[in-house]
């Protein structure tokens, strides 16, 4: 409580602090309302559309709305509720979808001019699963172009503003997904994480975000960036709701050969368990040079809370961490250069006018359609894969990737979870890093490791800086141990008061 008052005082000192932050109702509250008939799904959806109409011009969170589809689903839920039928877990819950996941008939831009005008004729599996569980899909959320970026400033449709402070970035690449939850423009959202794109914006906007284990959630219908790294995961205002959402979207899919057949846990129930006896590893490599002192203090306080709740804190070492960013940027860009080859102006999206030959049409469409960061990554990836450089760059990065992943497996022999800051810095100002791609890449230093190792993780809010900027704690767990990560995150969350 004292902490909350402290935060409020700190916020009032900040002149650009806005009134956009609002906590959405919890899933259990909403569910009770819908079952009792007190809440009508249709009215709820309309009230969200009103809020979106009111504040989206200031925040630029939504790129398109799927009103017709949303009201159809909501109407169906209201009919079921009136009949007294058993309602699915997300009945009537308004959700938003990052615009790299496709929803039938809705525009799918991936934040790029390259896909302008594209209306995919099918649903991503994660989107279909949310809707099958009763969720009402409000629309598509802004993001960095093709999910490449850490600030949402690479969107061809303009940056998202952080609802906590509109002069600051919301993080990226799932900036719209995080901001939507922070500003109650959706109760929950889907994002994607290739190098930190769920965890870092969750941290910057002060909400919960989940990186599921590689293979836990189907990627069918995800516009691919780097296929050995891409994951789909949920955002929610609290950890338990994020856990519920993961149980809905996880599972095997015949349309994604990398999805796992392992049974899906009841993650919300797992998150209810005590952390008594849980072994929490703290790696020194995540608390070194470059870490903002206020963030360090906040994360150390979070670790103290875990200890107080009965967890056992152990120092662990992950020495290859310092090589994670260069490794990530080679692996991710190499895969991106191959994945983005499909955008050629032939089958969908943008085509340059007036090219006389096929080759000129390809290269001109791509130069006009892609933004600067996407081109930079395609170029780096193409270079790293080209004859004469493959061994020195791409193969080398894959070797380091194995060292890094095996290091995690060793540490997870000693501890159940690893606790770190999600980001070394609080949300920075719009425009602050746009001229220096390398500085932007270094902001991903604590998140790219779990991406490379394929392990799971959660960002849980961990208070704020003196000036009211959110801080996030990252809890990592080994492959398919999401339940354990949620448990620890719940304990950190509970201590926030």
């Amino acid at each position, binding site marked *: 409580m004292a902490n909350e008052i402290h935060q409020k005082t700190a916020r009032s000192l900040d002149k650009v602090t806005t009134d956009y932050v609002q906590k959405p109702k919890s899933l259990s509250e909403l569910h009770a309302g819908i079952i009792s008939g007190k809440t009508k799904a249709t009215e709820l959806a309309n009230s969200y559309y009103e809020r979106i109409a009111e504040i989206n011009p200031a925040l630029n969170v939504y790129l398109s709305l799927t009103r017709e589809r949303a009201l159809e689903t909501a109407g169906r839920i209201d009919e079921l509720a009136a009949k007294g039928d058993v309602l699915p877990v997300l009945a009537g819950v308004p959700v938003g979808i990052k615009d790299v996941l496709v929803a039938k008939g809705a525009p799918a831009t991936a934040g790029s001019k390259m896909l302008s005008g594209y209306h995919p*004729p099918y649903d991503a599996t994660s989107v279909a699963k949310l809707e099958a569980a009763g969720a009402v899909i409000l629309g598509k959320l802004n993001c960095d172009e093709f999910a490449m970026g850490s600030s949402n400033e690479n969107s061809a449709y303009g940056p998202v503003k952080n609802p906590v402070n509109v002069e600051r970035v919301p993080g990226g690449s799932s900036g719209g997904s995080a901001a939507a939850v922070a500003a109650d423009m959706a109760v929950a959202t889907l994002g994607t994480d290739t190098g930190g794109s769920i965890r870092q914006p969750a941290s910057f906007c002060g909400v919960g975000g989940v990186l599921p284990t590689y293979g836990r959630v189907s990627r069918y219908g995800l516009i691919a960036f780097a296929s050995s790294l891409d994951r789909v995961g949920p955002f929610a205002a609290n950890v338990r709701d994020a856990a519920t959402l993961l149980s809905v979207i996880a599972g095997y899919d015949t349309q994604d050969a990398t999805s796992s057949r392992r049974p899906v846990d009841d993650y919300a129930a797992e998150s209810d368990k005590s952390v008594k006896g849980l072994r929490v590893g703290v790696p020194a490599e995540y608390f070194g040079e470059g870490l903002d002192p206020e963030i360090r203090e906040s994360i150390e306080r979070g670790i103290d809370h875990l200890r107080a709740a009965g967890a056992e804190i152990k120092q662990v070492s992950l020495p290859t961490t310092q090589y994670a960013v260069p490794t990530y940027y080679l692996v991710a860009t190499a895969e991106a250069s191959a994945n983005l080859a499909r955008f050629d102006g032939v089958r969908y999206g943008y085509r340059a006018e007036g090219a006389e*030959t096929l080759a000129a049409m390809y290269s001109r469409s791509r130069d006009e359609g892609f933004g600067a960061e996407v081109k930079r990554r*395609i170029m780096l990836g193409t*270079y790293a894969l080209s004859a004469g450089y493959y061994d020195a760059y791409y193969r080398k990065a894959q070797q380091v990737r*194995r060292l890094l992943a095996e290091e995690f497996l060793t540490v997870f022999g000693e501890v159940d979870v690893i606790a770190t800051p999600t980001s070394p810095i609080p949300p920075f100002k719009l425009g602050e890093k746009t001229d220096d791609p390398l500085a932007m890449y270094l902001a991903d230093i604590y998140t790219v490791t779990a991406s490379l190792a394929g392990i799971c993780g959660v960002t849980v809010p961990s208070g704020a800086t003196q000036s009211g900027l959110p801080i996030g704690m990252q809890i990592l767990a080994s492959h398919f141990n999401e339940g354990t990560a949620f448990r620890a995150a719940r304990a950190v969350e509970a201590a926030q008061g």
Partner: protein
Amino acid sequence: MSARVGAEEVGRVAELAHLELTAEESGRMQQDLNAILDYIVQLNELDTTGVEPLSQVNELGSEGASVCVDENLRADEVHASLDRRDVMDEAPESNGQFFKVPKVIER
């Protein structure tokens, strides 16, 4: 510091990537690629002799990590797919049956 990537090489890579960069873009690209590669070469500090490259985490050997792709392949059966018209409608130019593109072969 000597540049790792010269102007000519930027042109060669852009050609491989099917990107028609403007002169201004090429100059900036060369500068950015060199800055990033100068940072990336620190990987050479690590001795990786004999380390098997890891391209997918399911190759990790840990039981927890195994997502065995072979076992995941679905049965080779014919299923209804997307409607052709729905797909062709998305093309910048098509006759409903084929994608139309500029001339490929000069006669």
